[in-house]
């Protein structure tokens, strides 16, 4: 790691080239640039997750830490390559006026012609696609479950501002559930009459799962509350009986379906690097997520209407 104090984009870019030549491997086979916007406190964990995800997706990872926006503009950076990274990394700390112009720092550091993804590990902007940094990226990853302010509304806000390329880790988290539910209907093509999702009271993932089931199956999907962790049960009711996946410990689920013996199935809550790696696998629009967010907005609309 090279420390650059009071620096600028071109010095950081020059340091990337220097470091690569020094490592003796000028071609790194990097496939994308990943921007991470994070507070000082979350920076370490976020960079660590990106490091692990970069095994699958070699990337130039630019960690941007915006600090106090008052005062004179200063940019400090730590630049490094290799050492268990399969890409390059720069952790850039912004202070003063430049905080409001972070995109001017990042833009010259994007890899030529390769896709750009951005990830807000904690609090995303209200409208990620309209954010100056967010607009540089074609994939904007948020995490409604990790938001520290206004948790219960976070997902709703993100869905309301859905734009092509937006996606949320709460959605990524339910891929194994969705895979298992889809496989259940592959095995027994039964017509689902109604369904229910049981989870912790605040669970963006459960909300998305509910919306997805509602959108795909066109049936009522109840949302019930349990003590968690995360999602604890999904039931799809058919005329032959319920298809039920229940997971009480966050690890091992029981899969039951009509006329078949109950079977255990591993359904572990996945760690951040796994989620991020899945998210970076495809950088085009996630059409199913788009439909699900639209459905979620509709469901929320009717729920609000009923209350009023």
């Amino acid at each position, binding site marked *: 790691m090279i420390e650059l104090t009071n620096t600028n984009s071109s010095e950081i870019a020059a340091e990337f080239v220097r470091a690569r030549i020094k490592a003796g491997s000028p*071609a790194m086979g990097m496939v994308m640039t990943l921007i991470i916007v994070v507070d000082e406190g979350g920076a370490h964990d976020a960079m660590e997750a990106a490091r692990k995800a970069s095994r699958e997706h070699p990337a130039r990872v630019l960690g941007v830490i915006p600090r106090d926006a008052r005062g004179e503009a200063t940019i400090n950076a730590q630049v490094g390559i290799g050492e268990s990274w399969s890409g390059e990394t720069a952790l850039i700390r912004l202070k003063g006026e430049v905080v409001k112009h972070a995109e001017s720092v990042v833009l010259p550091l994007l890899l030529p012609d390769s896709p750009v993804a951005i990830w807000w590990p904690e609090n995303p902007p209200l409208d990620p696609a309209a954010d100056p940094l967010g607009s540089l990226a074609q994939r904007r990853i948020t995490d409604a479950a990790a938001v520290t302010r206004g948790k219960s509304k976070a997902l709703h806000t993100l869905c309301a501002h859905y734009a092509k390329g937006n996606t949320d880790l709460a959605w990524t988290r339910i*891929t194994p559930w969705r895979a298992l539910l889809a496989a259940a209907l592959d*095995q027994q093509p039964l017509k689902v009459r109604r369904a229910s999702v049981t989870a912790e009271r605040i669970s963006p993932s459960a909300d998305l799962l509910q919306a997805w089931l509602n959108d795909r199956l066109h049936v009522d999907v109840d949302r019930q509350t349990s003590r968690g962790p995360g999602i604890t049960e999904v039931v799809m009711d058919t005329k032959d009986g319920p298809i039920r996946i229940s997971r009480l410990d966050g*690890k091992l689920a029981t899969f039951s379906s009509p006329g078949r013996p109950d079977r255990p199935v591993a359904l572990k809550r996945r760690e951040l690097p796994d989620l991020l790696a899945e998210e970076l696998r495809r950088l085009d629009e996630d059409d199913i997520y788009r439909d699900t967010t639209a459905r979620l907005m509709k469901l929320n609309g009717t729920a609000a209407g009923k209350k009023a």
Partner: protein
Amino acid sequence: MTGPVNPLRDPEDRRLPRIAGPCGMVLFGVTGDLSRKKIMPAIYDLANRGLLPPGFSLVGFARRDWADQDFAQIVHDSVRDHSRTEFREEVWRQLAEGFRFVPGDFNDDHAFDQLRRTIEELDEVRGTSGNHAFYLAIPPSFFGAVAGQLKEHGLAEPRPGHWRRVVVEKPFGHDLASARALNDILGEVFESGSIFRIDHYLGKETVQNILAMRFANNLFEPIWNGNYVDHVQITMAEDVGIGGRAGYYDGVGAARDVIQNHLMQLLALVAMEEPVSFDAESLRTEKLKVLSSVVLPGSLDQTTARGQYTAGWAGGEKVVGFCEEEGISKTSKTETYAAVTLNVETRRWAGVPFYLRTGKRLGRRVTEVAVVFKRAPHLPFNATATEELTANTLVIRVQPDEGMTIRFGAKVPGTAMEIRDVNMDFAYGGSFTESSPEAYERLILDVLLGDPPLFPRHEEVELSWKILDPVLARWAASGAPEPYGPGTWGPKSANEMLARDGRAWRRP
């Protein structure tokens, strides 16, 4: 495929993995290296990635006095030692409930009766629904006995709407006649769509990438023909000797062990025309077309080479020669190095020789395909400027260090015009491979899904033998293989073989 549409599936939903339907696997040859080092860890890794169905069951069959728990212990140890992904208790619990063991001999009717009952019991308590794959990780000489027993005890016949599949590993015979005989044995019991032949090379990401590279890009295909390509070298080298495989290797040799299957498949993928689509049928059509257009050159003595490693030093270690290996006859004529020249008689490849070589105890472990291009027809430089420029080459590195290299000339910095070869490299990521699944994971999953594109069909196997048989016959009739020192790149005759055509082997 037609049938009821699953509302939860959408072709646009590319996050959802394909999970195999309810099924189980019966493993013959539980104690072998293949089972312990490859198959069992792959099954665990698949479960860990959430790709096995709930209720997946694994039945071991062997001549051991074991209970289910003993078998589970063997699997546990092999998973601990060899699996690619981390060990997780809940995944293990999902799997372990489905372990069964049936002790018995291959000609023991009682044991196969018990196997049938075990499978029926699993259908009952684990919901495997009558879908079972029989993995024959045993020497081919036992295929007949096992297949016969499976048929006799009604194990090979699926109920309507369910499946029974059989999985076999190479060698698929030792010549055309024996390959046909073997196929007849299996074909009598299983229909051809239910026989899965594993060539683990085809499960490798880099091998599948050959198709992606050729047919997803516009850059390579225009020059992928005899107008621009001078020749192609396909190499699979190992730095080790035969190790513990003496019993199998003696009398078989390098050509049968490697060229007939792996290298012929690589050749087919490199040389074939563009398939209409990527389904199994279209791929097979193209592979069959190109394999049936392969011919051997006229004089086999001039265009093939074989060798046998001697004692000496390799990689800083003192090693014994092939004939001194344990279990090998002192007078063995089995080749440990084989090289052949093949011509592909199509418009695309007319006049472009394909050189295939493989060997044990060579310089290092490497598998690669090198497409060597013709030199530029005119070089507007003086002779000294291009002295160090050789032919442009595109190398597909299959293993280790997966990736691609392009070699071309560039100007050496300085006042004089001097041109030298440089490499441009695409590595499959610094550690891309860490997350990329083992070949066996992919292949076993494909067996359970019933997805055949990556498995060679018997027609391909037979065509490969048809190509190789005359070479083997010629070698059998002409004395012993030429000795070569360990840790070198093979016998002199192999170099002479290329020198006759005015070419040389790459040092891979």
